[in-house]
C-alpha cells in the first residue's frame, strides 16, 4: 500500500511517500506562511518524483507543529510519536531519540516497537537550536558548513553559559570582540546548544542506542559535542530531517 507522511516543520515541510515500507520519494518545501499550500506543493512534488498519481496514495498522515493545517490529511500525529516510529523503523536498536529542530529540541525514550515511553522538551527559556547556529554563523561572517568545520578544529574551551539563546548571542558577540579564535567561538556555540539539549535529555532515561535526528543532526559539530555531553555514542540515520515524515507515512500504513 502506498502512503504519505507530511511533516509540517517551523521552516520546511517534508514529505515522504512510502510503498510497503519502501521509500518511493521525498520532497522538501519551505513552509512559508501558507502552510496548506506548502503541504500541497510538497506532496505534489513527491508524487511527481515517485512517478505515481494522487489516487495511488491510500492514506496520508500529517505531523509537526503545523499538522492541523493539512486539512486533506486522513490523520494528524504529534512529532513525538512520529519521531519514535520513524527512528525505530530505520534503527531498531534505538531506545533514546534526540530531535533538534530550528527552535526546539526534544528527547524521547521508546521501546523496540517505537512506542513512546517518556519524552522531554526544552523549557521555555532554553529554546533556540538550529536557528541559533545560523544567526551565530552570520555574526562570525561564516557559512554554516564553514563554521561546523572550524568548530571541529577548536582547541580551547570558551564557555557560553546563558540558557537564553538571545543572551548567548551577546556572549558570542563579547567573545568576538575579545579576539577569541573563531574556531573556539564556533565550538563554544555548538557546545552551548549541546549543553542545553543534553541537560533536557537527561530528564528521561538515556539508554543505548541513542539517535540524533532533525535538521540539526546533519551538523557534524553538534553530533560531536552531543557525544561528549551525553557520554554515549550517537547514531544519525540517513536523511535525519525526514524521520518525522517517515514516521507519519508508516503510521498511515498501519
Amino acid at each position, binding site marked *: 500500500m502506498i502512503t504519505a507522511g507530511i511533516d509540517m516543520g517551523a521552516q520546511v515541510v517534508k514529505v515522504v511517500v512510502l510503498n510497503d515500507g519502501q521509500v518511493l520519494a521525498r520532497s522538501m518545501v519551505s513552509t512559508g506562511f501558507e502552510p496548506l499550500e506548502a503541504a500541497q506543493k510538497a506532496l505534489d512534488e513527491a508524487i511527481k518524483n515517485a512517478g505515481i498519481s494522487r489516487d495511488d496514495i491510500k492514506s496520508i498522515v500529517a505531523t509537526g507543529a503545523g499538522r492541523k493545517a493539512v486539512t486533506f490529511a486522513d490523520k494528524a500525529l504529534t512529532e513525538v510519536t512520529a519521531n519514535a516510529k520513524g527512528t525505530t523503523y530505520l534503527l531498531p536498536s534505538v531506545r533514546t531519540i534526540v530531535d533538534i529542530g530550528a527552535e526546539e529540541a526534544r528527547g524521547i525514550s521508546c521501546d523496540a516497537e517505537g512506542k513512546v515511553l517518556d519524552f522531554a522538551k526544552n523549557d521555555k*527559556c532554553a529554546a533556540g537550536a538550529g536557528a541559533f547556529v545560523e544567526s551565530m554563523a552570520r555574526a562570525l561572517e561564516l557559512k554554516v558548513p564553514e563554521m561546523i568545520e572550524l568548530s571541529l578544529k577548536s582547541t580551547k574551551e570558551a564557555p557560553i553559559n*546563558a540558557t537564553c539563546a538571545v543572551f548567548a548571542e551577546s*556572549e558570542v558577540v563579547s567573545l568576538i570582540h*575579545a579576539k577569541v579564535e573563531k574556531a573556539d567561538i564556533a565550538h563554544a556555540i555548538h557546545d552551548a546548544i549541546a549543553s542545553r539539549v543534553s*541537560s533536557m535529555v*537527561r530528564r528521561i532515561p538515556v539508554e543505548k542506542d541513542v539517535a540524533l535526528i532533525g535538521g540539526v543532526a546533519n551538523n557534524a559539530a553538534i553530533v560531536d559535542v552531543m557525544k561528549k*555531553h551525553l557520554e554515549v555514542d550517537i547514531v544519525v540515520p540517513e536523511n535525519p530531517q525526514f524521520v518525522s515524515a517517515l514516521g507519519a507515512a508508516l503510521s498511515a500504513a498501519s
Partner: protein
Amino acid sequence: MSVIEKFQEVSANRHQYAKDWKEQTGGKVTGWLCTYSPVELIYAAGMLPVRILGTHEVQDITDRYLFPTVCPFSRDALAQGLKGRYDYLDGLTMTRTCSHVQGTFDNWRNYVPVPFIHYTWFPCHRESPRAIPCLREELLELKQAIENFTGKTVSDEDLDKAIELYNTNRKLMRQVYEFRKSDDPPITGAEAMEMVVASQLMDVVEHNKLLEELVAELPNKKLDRDTGLRLMMVGSEMDDIVFVRMLEELGCTVVIDEHCTGSRYFWDDIVPQEDRLAAIAGRYVTRWPCPAVSSEFNDRSDRIIQHAKNWDAQGVLLYQQKFCDPHEFDIPMLQKMFKEHDIPTLVLEFDVTIPFGQFRTRIEAFLEIAEIEVF
C-alpha cells in the same frame, strides 16, 4: 609562598587538602551546606568541617534533579556531589535555612551516598525568645548523632577548645578586615575572599596560624595599584574569585563585604557560658542574619549600613544568585536604603558562570559615574 597564595592553594586543591587531612589525622571529614551549620560542634568531634561550594563550570547534570529555577549555587554544589568530587566525605550536614540549598541537600542525601547524614532543624523565628532553647536541643541531637557515628563522646573540654579556636579564627579575620579601612588597603577584595573561602575548607588550627602571619605582615604591606573606588559587595553566596579579580582590575577595590563567604560567615563570636550547646545556639540564632532565615529586614540592613560607613564604601555592588528569592526580597529595600545615604549601587544577577562582556560594561559604566570628571 605568601599566606594568600597558601589560601589560594588550599581552595584550588580543596579535595586533595581534605584527603591529605584524613591521611595525616585519621579523622573524618564532614561537608556542610550552609553557614548556619555549627562548625565548632563538628570540629569538637574531631571531624574536619568543609563547606560544599560550586566550581563555576558550565554543567548539564543537575536539571534532572533540580528545576532550573533553583539558584545556580545550589545546582552547582549538587553537581559537585553528582560528579563524585566529594567521594571522600564521611558526613554531610545541613541546617534548615533556604529551600534552594534544601533541594541540594535532599538530592545529595538520596543520590550521592554518604555514611553519615544529619539535618539540623533550625528555629527561624530568631526574634522569638523560644528559639535559642529550641536550637540547643537540636544541637544536642546533632552532637549525639555525631557521637554515635564517631563512637567518641564530645566532652565540654572538646567544645571549649573548638569554640575557642573558632572565636580566634573570627577575631583574626575581623582584624584583617580592619586593615581594609585604611585609605590604601593592603589587601584586595579577591585576597580577602581567598582568606574566608579557605577558612571554610581548612583545619581551623592551621588557618589561624596563617592568619596570625597575615595580620603580622599587613601593617607594612602595600598594594602595587591605586585603590580606586572603595566598593562594598552585598548579597548571596559568592566565591567567584575570577569575577572579583576582574571587578578590581576595572579600577576599584572591594574594601568590605556582606555575604556568606565573607563577613556574614564569621562576624559574630560565641559568648562562652556554662551550657556550651546553649552558647553555640545563642550564636547561631542571633548571628548576622541571612535573609533566607531572617524575616526582619532591618535586622540585616542596620548592620549593612554600619559596615558601609565604617569602611567608607563609595559604591555598593548588590548581587544575587539568579532566582535567590530571599535576596530578591531585600535588594529593592537595600537600594532604597543606600540611596537615602547617597551611596550609589549596582545590581548584578549571577549564574553558574557569568557573561563577562555584559558585566564588564555595567561595572565600568558604574565606575565612570563616580570617576569621569573630564568635563
